[in-house]
């Protein structure tokens, strides 16, 4: 089987994926799958999507070689600059695709979950641009630690609801967004923010982020003499990682998805079913989903997208974890050596690179810099005080 192609008819990547949703949502998922399939095969839609990525989001994003830090680490370190996209992260790629699709399906309202707020901000942005109503669910813990993003969403006309249930983070925001969708499915599209959830989301969201990998493959070949030895990205649900992996899965490059130690679904989980998908999941001995604990709101999630579980199960990608302390160091290191303040999420990818550099001397390492650190500056000010 070709890797990172279409999943099976039941939305499976190997044994992972599927569509475990309440009966009410089955027709909506089927309708979405048909609409996406149709749109993705339609040259007019593809052109519209390419145009909006270029003229609104600012694509293609550039590659930056980090000479100072690379020299220090003994590697050639190249960053894919998704932080330079409009709204400050890779999330906009997926959201613009889904918002165009929602309009094509005649939906007038978006619901979205958000952790760090980047997907929420991107959703609010697309909703403002395209005249859609938008409601974003965000865990109460994250509302507190990502205050600026909450304000940005509201500024653009979206409603933000602080979710008080469960761990009050990303997992519970997904639950609440699904509850909303169950009640509003007639006029509402659920704009899911990562390569997770029921079929077709993991596939569709990966396709909307494929542009990251496709661009990077070409840019590496034009400006850096060919494919990298290692491709590294952080993994929450896993969308930025899927995006960049998709460009290199058929090369010899080592693919590394970095999880937070407190939310290591692949590293510490076993297969389970939640949020519509079968995938690795942190759970207790009775199958209760465990709470993740990470400094980064965007990675504070006990599950992972099903295609990552599949890539892990066949050994094509590896999923190590880094600690909050390593992340705090990496965040400062990139700021100081390169004048780039990363979001805490991609700082995980860098933390792994720093730790493993001694074993990769001379290698070319491509990292997906999935977002910028503006949203995290207030939180880091507290931590570093």
């Amino acid at each position, binding site marked *: 089987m070709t890797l990172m192609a279409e999943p099976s008819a*039941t939305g499976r990547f190997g044994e992972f994926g*599927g*569509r*475990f*949703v*309440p*009966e*009410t*949502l*089955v*027709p*909506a998922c089927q309708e979405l799958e048909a609409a996406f399939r149709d749109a993705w095969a339609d040259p007019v839609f593809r052109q519209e999507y390419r145009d909006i990525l270029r003229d609104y989001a600012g694509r293609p994003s550039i590659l930056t070689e980090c000479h100072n830090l690379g020299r220090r680490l003994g590697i050639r370190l190249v960053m894919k600059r998704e932080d330079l996209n409009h709204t400050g992260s890779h999330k906009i790629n997926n959201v613009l695709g889904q918002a165009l699709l929602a309009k094509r399906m005649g939906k007038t309202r978006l619901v979205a979950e958000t952790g760090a707020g980047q997907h929420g901000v991107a959703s609010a942005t697309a909703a403002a641009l395209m005249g859609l109503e938008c409601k974003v669910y965000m865990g109460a813990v994250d509302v507190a630690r990502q205050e600026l993003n909450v304000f940005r969403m509201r500024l653009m006309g979206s409603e933000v609801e602080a979710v008080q*249930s*469960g761990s009050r983070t990303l*997992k*519970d925001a997904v*639950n609440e967004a*699904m*509850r909303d969708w*169950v*009640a*509003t*499915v*007639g006029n509402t599209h659920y704009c899911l923010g990562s390569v997770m959830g029921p079929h077709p989301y993991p596939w569709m969201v990966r396709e909307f982020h494929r542009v990251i990998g496709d661009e990077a493959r070409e840019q590496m070949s034009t400006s850096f003499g060919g494919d990298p030895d290692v491709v590294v990205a952080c993994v929450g649900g896993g969308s930025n990682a899927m995006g960049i992996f998709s460009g290199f899965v058929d090369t010899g490059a080592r693919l590394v998805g970095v999880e937070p130690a407190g939310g290591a679904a692949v590293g510490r989980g076993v*297969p*389970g*079913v*939640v*949020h*519509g998908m*079968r995938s690795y*999941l942190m*759970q207790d001995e*009775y*199958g*209760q*989903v*465990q709470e993740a604990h990470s400094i980064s709101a965007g990675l504070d999630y006990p599950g992972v997208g099903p295609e990552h579980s599949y890539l892990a199960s066949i050994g094509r990608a590896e999923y190590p974890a880094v600690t909050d302390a390593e992340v705090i160091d990496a965040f400062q290191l990139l700021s100081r050596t390169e004048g780039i303040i990363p979001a805490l999420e991609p700082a995980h990818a860098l933390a792994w690179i720093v730790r493993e550099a001694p074993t990769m001397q001379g290698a070319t390492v491509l990292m997906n810099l999935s977002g910028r650190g503006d949203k995290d500056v207030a939180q880091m000010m507290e931590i570093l005080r």
Partner: protein
Amino acid sequence: MSAAPGRMEQSFRDRRAAGRKLLVPYITGGLPGWQDALRAAVAAGADAIEIGIPFSDPVMDGPVIQEASQRALDAGATPVSILHEARELDVEVPLAVMLYYNTVHHAGHHRFAEQLASAGIVAAIVPDLPLEEAGPWCEAADASSIETVMLAAPTAPDERLPRVCARARGFVYSVGLLGVTGERSALASTATTLAGRLKAITDVPVLVGVGVSNAAQAREAVQVADGVVQGASVVRRLLEAGADAVGEYVAEVRAAIDADI
């Protein structure tokens, strides 16, 4: 159409044939006082009980049942402890469980079906396991004589409903509205519409659940359906006032659906 009816379905069919409307209260297992509440509901005229097995991420549940689940989990409830307590209940009516699929998936299909059977449970409702994904569980459940209740939703196109009914054992759970569990001020029009669509194509008992919030709404629903499941309105009484209040409420609903039309 399907295999011989299981214990719950046979009981429902017999009662229906005798002109009785079916009343199935939902009670969150492991919530302090749940066994007393369950016995009170049976004494007040429940035809079966749906025991909720609390899950960390109950996506089909609104605030009341979410809170009950969380309280039960905080009190240390597990699927094993609840099934253990269910075994001691010794009530006459059939007992079903309502749970989320990961509870089954994690334990293993066959193992879990056997655990239910040995606890005296006869049926299971798994609201996040739609028809297309239900095969492996249904097979294991069938083998252990556990009746798997299928849910039918207002969004289902006509061609889907016969397939849902064909796989349903025990009863067909006709979802009363677009939304999650919780009390509403009026019965949604979708409740009787969907129940009518189901009644037209199946002789498996059809019960309306989700959003049937009081005695009057239950009475309205059974004008079309064979019975009702009542969740949030029961659980709220258990949370706020205890087992006796549950018994009184079930008696009130019983009287309303029994009254001559």
